[in-house]
């Protein structure tokens, strides 16, 4: 197998992609039933990027991503039920209903969140990488964002610092040809985002984001580079979202023919066919994966739907790590009569 992958690892990657696809289908359905609200951005079509990239690094390497974040969470192995319950706004949600679809996170799995302000997590990823370097941890940071984010100043600030200070961060640009309704030509003077890394002397590769092995290979190379102390690396995954930007998107800006052409490159059957060809699996086994995953998702939806809402009184929980109660200020420490205090 390419990139030293075992058959077992390949099967796991396939399953993860199917998991994400089914999760998204159920999320869309729940949104249509008004069980999920707000902005819902589906990762359908882009599964190979998160799965290939996250499979290529250690389980304790750090991950940050943008608001189209269900894929990162599931690829990292976050609890499917807790992710679904977050979309349903329940107390059992992975962030107890505080964040919703755009803000999944699981610190215990080193997944530091979906971030919904475009580009905001790019310098944050660089900062985490600095902490790893400083603490001499052999860990790298994967930081996922879209093509649209590269037009924002914060992207350039983050890349500049990462390169300047030689930080172990892999920037992964999911180039899906659109930033909401803006085409690449409308948002960027270059259509290959990796060119933007050049000005920061950052090595960069482009990979086929519809091919999980291509992504795996690129990120494996990138992470090795980072881990060996050579500084940041830029990976551009060429991909496509099969659905609208969010559920509210009428998709007036792209034609159906283009969507159809990209759908032919669907990363899931593509990898499935490859695995069958390589005799790593059989069509039968793939069908079983499909069924098992579907059962898992139905269970997740059932769990989410029957989970309790957060307690009304808990609404002000977690504003601070050290809670403050402005109604009952602590007694100001008195220096009078305190010899230790008085002495200084």
């Amino acid at each position, binding site marked *: 197998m390419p990139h030293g992958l075992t058959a077992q690892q390949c099967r796991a990657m396939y399953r993860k992609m199917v998991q994400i696809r089914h999760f998204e289908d159920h999320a869309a359905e729940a949104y249509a039933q008004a069980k999920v*609200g*707000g*902005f819902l951005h589906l990762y359908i079509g882009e599964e190979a990027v998160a799965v290939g990239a996250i499979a290529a690094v250690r389980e304790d390497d750090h991950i940050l991503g943008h608001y189209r974040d269900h894929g990162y969470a599931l690829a990292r192995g976050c609890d499917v039920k807790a992710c679904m319950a*977050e979309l349903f*706004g*329940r107390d059992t*949600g992975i962030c107890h*209903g*505080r*964040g*919703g*679809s*755009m*803000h999944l996170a699981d610190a215990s799995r080193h997944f530091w969140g979906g971030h*919904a*302000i*475009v*580009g905001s997590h790019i310098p944050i990823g660089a900062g985490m990488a600095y902490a790893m370097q400083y603490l001499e941890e052999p860990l790298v940071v994967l930081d996922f964002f879209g093509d*649209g*984010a590269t*037009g*924002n*100043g*914060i992207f350039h600030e983050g890349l500049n610092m990462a390169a300047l200070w030689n930080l172990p961060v892999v920037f992964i640009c999911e180039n899906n040809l659109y*930033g*909401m*309704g*803006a*085409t690449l030509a*409308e*948002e*960027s003077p270059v259509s290959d985002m990796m060119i933007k890394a050049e000005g920061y002397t950052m090595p960069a590769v482009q990979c086929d984001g519809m091919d999980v092995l291509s992504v795996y290979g690129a990120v494996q190379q990138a992470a090795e580079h980072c881990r060996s102390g050579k500084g940041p690396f830029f990976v551009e995954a060429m991909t496509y979202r099969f659905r609208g*930007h969010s559920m509210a*998107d009428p998709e*007036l*800006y792209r034609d159906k023919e283009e969507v159809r052409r990209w759908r032919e490159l669907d990363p899931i059957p593509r990898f499935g066919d490859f695995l069958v060809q390589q005799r790593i699996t059989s069509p039968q086994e793939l069908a079983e994966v499909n069924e098992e995953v579907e059962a898992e998702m139905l269970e997740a939806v059932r769990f989410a739907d029957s989970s309790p*809402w*957060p307690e*009304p009184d*808990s*609404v*002000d929980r977690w*504003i601070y790590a050290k809670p403050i109660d402005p109604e009952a200020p602590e007694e100001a420490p008195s220096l009078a009569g305190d010899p230790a205090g008085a002495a200084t």
Partner: protein
Amino acid sequence: MAELTYREAVRSAMREEMRSDSRVILMGESITGYGGSYAVTKGLVEEFGPKRVMETPIAEAGIVGFAVGAAMGGLRPVAELMTVNFALLALDQIVNSAAKFHYMFGGQWSVPLVVRTVSGFGQLGPTHSQSFEGWFASVPGLKVVMPATPADAKGLLLAAIRDPDPVIFIEHSLLYSTKGEVPEQEGLEVPIGRAAVVREGTDVTLVGYSRMLLQALHAAEVLEREDGVSCEVVDLRTLRPLDYPTVVGSVGRTHRLVLCGEDWRTGGFGANLLSEIQDRSFDDLDAPIARVAMRDIPLPYSRKLEQQLIPASQQIVDAVRRMS
């Protein structure tokens, strides 16, 4: 009069002003092919072309800086920032450039810029559900407008585009589909800096703006029906410069005041307004000024938690009942 939605009213102001003044340009993210995230700019690129309706990168600081420059160069830019939450990325350009130049350079030039942006909520989570009008309104050099009705949205936007100073024009996502009568006469302005008494009453004054104006009107109905309390309702419409005479005049008649806002209680717009009105109307007041505001909590995603925090007419009713 024609019946328009708030969305259509905003659009028609831009369309009319673009037809009559070729210096007016629009810029923003996903405002062309997508038609704007709240469909406000729909159809405008088709009519005016991409030189006047500019699709921009996702670059808020850049957009506003660019618009400041375009304004200095002789254009009349209307920059759309998709929501007020993303306007935070452009705060430096808004505060340190747009708001300062006329003063700092000794009145040599002004920055005729409109920043259109959107407040609101609806299970959007903590980063996407905020109200910052109080921040903008605290900055000398800015004018801040927050219309509640389609007629005001149109008239005030026309005035904003023609104004020689930077205007922060804050729409509300939950008002876009509301309808109202709008004068048919083209180009009719609603002046910046004028509040309106939208309901006359004798017992208590409710001051609101944007969505909270509608909540105040609803509260007034409930109080009239259930308590026989007569509320006067004032729509601020412009937060800076603020029309103190209208508010003070109303308090002089009713002697009680409730300030209704959607932003956080601490440092919210109402906090400042309260101190000003207390200074100006202390002798007229029969009760402490009451405020309805958002509790000091980030707005969570979960529907149940969110609902419990959103300021609405019930809190206004309760505030009035507590006064008497």
